[in-house]
């Protein structure tokens, strides 16, 4: 088993790593050889959406997924606290400016990232079904509201994830892959078969799934055909 980052942060400000976070780590670990092989001898643009505490990005840097000295890690969160925290978590685990390329960006998903650049996209989204996706808080100090954004995914919990899936062709580089987490209430099987029927761009594979309390979580890999 690969080492997991040490995390010490304020969970009033960012999402506390949970079963979903760990399932993503396990999925990346499972695909380690595949990713190293696919991206060897080139610069890899890694983009995590919604890093929260920074656990996933730090795990990737720490374990050289897909490689450390040849990767650019971009962590993009809407919550300003998540960016400070991600930098702190990375440092706490020995990832510093002098030994890795980590950039933390405050942004709404990939709207600010140049098209077709991302080689590896990782997203543990806000997936809990809710009436609406919460509005963006007007102040950095509205902590509870920022935390709501980490959880609530609107109808079927899919509003934010669906935006990413709809844009995936514009987000990923010609050799890009995406790892996206779903819960059962997102109806991932239905979503996957829908995509396969309506567009011929993707190979979609279930990498890992797990029962976590009353949730069933799964991580799917999207890669270009």
């Amino acid at each position, binding site marked *: 088993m690969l080492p997991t980052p040490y995390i010490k942060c304020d969970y009033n400000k960012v999402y506390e790593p949970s079963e979903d976070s760990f399932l993503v780590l396990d999925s990346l670990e499972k695909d380690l050889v595949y990713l190293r092989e696919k991206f060897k001898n*080139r610069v890899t643009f890694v983009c995590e959406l919604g890093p929260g505490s920074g656990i996933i990005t730090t795990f990737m840097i720490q374990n050289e997924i897909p490689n450390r000295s040849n990767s650019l890690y971009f962590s993009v969160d809407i919550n300003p606290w998540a960016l400070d925290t991600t930098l702190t978590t990375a440092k706490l685990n020995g990832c510093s400016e002098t030994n890795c390329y980590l950039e933390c960006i405050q*942004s*709404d998903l990939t*709207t600010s990232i140049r098209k077709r650049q991302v080689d590896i996209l990782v997203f543990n989204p806000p997936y809990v079904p809710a009436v609406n996706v919460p509005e963006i808080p007007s102040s950095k100090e509205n902590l509870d509201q920022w935390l709501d954004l980490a959880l609530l995914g609107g109808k079927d919990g899919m509003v934010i994830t669906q935006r990413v899936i709809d844009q995936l062709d514009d987000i990923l580089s010609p050799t890009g892959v995406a790892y996206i987490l779903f819960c059962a209430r997102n109806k991932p099987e239905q979503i996957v078969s829908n995509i396969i029927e309506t567009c011929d761009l993707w190979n979609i594979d279930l990498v890992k799934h797990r029962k976590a309390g009353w949730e069933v979580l799964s991580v799917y890999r999207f890669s270009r055909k």
Partner: protein
Amino acid sequence: MKFLTTNFLKCSVKACDISNLNFPLEYDGSKCKLVQNEDIEFQPEFLLNILDRIDWPAILQVAADLGNTSLPSQKPELHTNMDELNEEELVILRDLHTLLLQTSITEGEMRCRNCGHVYYIKNSIPNLLLPPHLA
């Protein structure tokens, strides 16, 4: 944020996506604070790979915004095999290392050349989030 990151950031406004002015953003040289970190080690192979995938005109443009007009107007064409790199090529890579990886913008602002929206960098973190009425 590191200078190289400017090569990946565009305006977040959706309507600007159809314009080719939304990338690179225009950095305000008088407001950007640049910091140099000499402790970041030179890895020629990494630089070679970076050179391979960057948009050179955008690098030139942002460098000029920030007062550096000494870059060659064409992307340097170097040997792709590390072992074949000569002295001169290593100097080029080293210069790029200094600019792209060792230089950070810690405070500053940049605007979209299409819609004029201004974004800020604070504490080295760029904020590309739009106010609700533009999102």
